């Protein structure tokens, strides 16, 4: 009975926790960039202010019901994948769906946003989506290959079991240590997955007016912010679970996320922007071969 209550509590509060962590991470990100640019930068919880402001807009325009539904798909898809990611103290749902499920759940937000933006009937948005999908192809391929390697190595596709296996032997059994090639490749992919520079041609403000968000104002933009903040947590946690051995408790997890995000931010803040095709070429020239070599190594190790 106790466990049931605990479960319910987790189910209710897990998204809130993720959102809070996301808020702080987002604020930290902006602060970090500002500092690199020798500015003071905004408050640590600036994203929170933005969300409140956006949700409190008096007038909101929509371009149709798909436009509304797409925002819901956006948020719910991200929450859905959140539930299937095991974190310390909560891995109930990860037994019902493995990593393949998570990868596909992560596609729901992309598709939802794509559909909604399509209905806003703004070419800037469509161009942004077309870029987003092409970039998706760019970074998902090496990322999935690294995962396949890990799954083959450990003989399971369940993320929870991956975490268990990695925690069994301390740092020595972390993915990044056992298979540095895969880890590095996935790191590159993560950079693209989080749309940080140099892979943020999707929202090129001065070129296509923030692309997908062109027609998104008020609460629509607000929901996109919420999704973005939860997504920060989701993507970083996935990487941490795959290659940094998950975490035993939340402090460890947050610390890992913090370090990882700092790494990504520092790349982000010193780079320019790649063109779409250049970005894809990069993804196929550096991370993909790395991952392939790693997987071949694993195969030979097995066979």
């Amino acid at each position: 009975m106790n466990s049931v209550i605990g479960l319910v509590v987790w189910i209710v509060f897990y998204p809130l926790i993720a959102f809070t962590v996301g808020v702080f991470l987002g604020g930290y990100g902006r602060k970090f960039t500002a500092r690199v640019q020798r500015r003071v930068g905004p408050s640590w919880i600036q994203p929170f202010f933005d969300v409140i402001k956006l949700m409190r807009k008096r007038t909101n325009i929509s371009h149709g019901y798909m436009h509304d539904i797409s925002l819901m798909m956006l948020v719910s898809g991200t929450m859905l994948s959140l539930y299937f990611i095991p974190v310390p103290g909560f891995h109930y749902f990860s037994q019902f769906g493995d990593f393949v499920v998570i990868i596909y759940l992560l596609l729901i937000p992309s598709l939802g946003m794509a559909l909604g933006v399509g209905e806003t009937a703004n070419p800037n948005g469509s161009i942004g989506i077309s870029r987003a999908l092409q970039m998706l192809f760019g970074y998902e391929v090496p990322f999935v290959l690294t995962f396949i390697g890990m799954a083959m190595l450990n003989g399971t596709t369940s993320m929870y079991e991956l975490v268990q296996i990695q925690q069994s032997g301390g740092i020595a059994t972390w993915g990044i240590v056992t298979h540095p090639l895969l880890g590095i490749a996935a790191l590159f992919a993560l950079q693209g997955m989080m749309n940080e520079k140099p892979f943020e041609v999707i929202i090129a403000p001065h070129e296509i007016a923030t692309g997908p968000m062109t027609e998104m104002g008020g609460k629509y933009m607000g929901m996109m912010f919420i999704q973005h903040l939860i997504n920060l947590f989701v993507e970083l946690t996935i990487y941490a679970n795959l290659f940094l051995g998950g975490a035993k408790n939340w402090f460890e997890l947050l610390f890992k996320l913090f370090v990882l995000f700092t790494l990504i931010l520092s790349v982000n803040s010193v780079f320019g922007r790649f063109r779409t095709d250049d970005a894809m070429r990069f993804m196929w020239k550096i991370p993909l071969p790395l991952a392939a070599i790693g997987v071949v190594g694993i195969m030979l190790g097995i066979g």
Partner: protein
Amino acid sequence: MNTFLLLIFPLAGFLIAALFSAFSKKGLVVGKTFAFLGFSAIVLVAIMAKSEIGSIIYGPMMFGWQLQFGLTAISWYFALMISGISWLTVVFSLGALREGGTYPMYYAWLFAKNLGMLGVILSQDILAFFIMWEFMSWTTYFLLQQGTKKARSTAMGYLIYAIIASMILFAGIIFLHQASGSFGFSEIASTVAGFDMRTLILAAVLLLAPMLIESAAYPLHRWMAPAYSSAETGITAFLSAISTRIGLYGVAIFLFTVLGFTAMKKLSAGHYFNLQVVIMTIGAFTMVVPTFTALFQHDAKKLMAWHSVGQGGYMLVGLATATSLGVAGGLFHIFTYLTYVTLILFCIAAVEYRTGTTNLNSLGGLIKKQPIAYVGLLFGIIGLAGIPPMNGFVSKWLIYRSLILGGHPFLALAAFIGTLGTILSVYKLIHNIFLGQLPERYNDVKEVGFFMQLPIWILMLVVLGTGVFPGLILGWVAKIQVSLGVEPLAVTLSGVQASAGQLNMNVVSSVFGATMLVAFIIFLIGGRRRIVGQYNNYAAGHFLDKTVKYNFNYNFYSAYEHIFGKRFLNPPVKRGEEGLVALVERASDFARRIYTGGLNTYLAYSLGAVILMVVILKGAI
């Protein structure tokens, strides 16, 4: 009895419709009613035939062999799919066909095609299989001809491939019959088990190559997309849904029943290069290449036709793994693909019915005008992309699992690349048809009528239902696995109970529903929202109206065309095909030149022949 009727009804339908068409060119209503009744009867018979699984009925005597027909688990599975899809196609055509075509013949060939396919899946010996196979190929050819003017030349392309396929199969059957002295599956299996390696490979190639051609496996796939896309749209749906999958049925039967596991073990000997790996590699190429060719298509039907080439790869790979997960995935994927491709193509047909075009560069914004077609297409593409909670996800999940845990990382990667390509191209599909700005000329477009909506609704229900409760179908798939001799899958109503990492679609979809609810609440928390017209739009301060072209759909994935364009628009396979044709033409030219028309050469031939013959006779001693 029902098994028998399953062959008799389509035959009767074919003859009656053909005679009817011979005597009256018009009579749309009669033709439609007759076809509807006929196919309803076929569906009923197919459902009732379940009780007769395992029973054999004997056909006519031929070459001292009694043809055998009968139902097995897998053939009942296919029989249901064939008859069901035909029924939906006919229902759709009740609304879709307008006055002025050759309808009776259209329906006649539809009946004939059904006869061919049902015959193939019901046949229990390779002779019956071959006869029905030939019949099916030819009916397909005539069915394809019912389409546009372009359809005749593309159907010709199909015919060439089909003939080559059936000739190879012919050779295989002659060979096996000579080796085993019988046409029966079991006798042949026992004979094949005794073959040595090279004979075995020969037999396997002779049997499987035609099936791969029919299921449009890379690099034998080039006939399919043009032929299917230039047929009438309902027919395109029907064909790409089930027709090519008969080839996969053949693969399954030949692999598991005719060749049998002992032979397959032999063929799979050798760690890195063996027949299984070859087939899987073919499947991998089939998954990737056609999918990315689809990306560059500017015609909705062509795009989908290329996809039905590509998705075949998943089923092929799944079957070729010969593992519990993989075979289940392959067989289930046949079903799921069938459902959502029909759905998608019906929706495209609904749009074509109103706008008269399937050109992706000239459509747009129709979501306001044809919401139901839009939702149907949405369900379809979510299924096709394999995203939860639609059924396409489950089958793909099974295939991925089998590939990853079976130690084929790069095949798994190919499968995933295929999926990504699918997502890209289906988004292009739905975006260019339904989203973006609505051109003025489509302002008076309406939703289609009841008969065209009904199949769309039904299929939407199936796609979602079998996605949330995959056990409904997977249960039967497990039975098929038992009958094929594969270790069956541990199936629950809600998904799969596998050893390492299970899948429970009920949980996934209910959590999805819950989070959707939360998102909806968040949406409500925000202030009121107002729906505005498409011209109230950000254009950097420009005033929009119908004179301003403010849309983005041409050359949608420019970066890809920039990188891959050339490779996919003029692939080596195409060049090879053209080279082969050129070779045949040169050879025929050479043969023609032998007959110079000059008497002197002819006389020379005669004398030379005499001398040659004497020499040969001398040499023969």
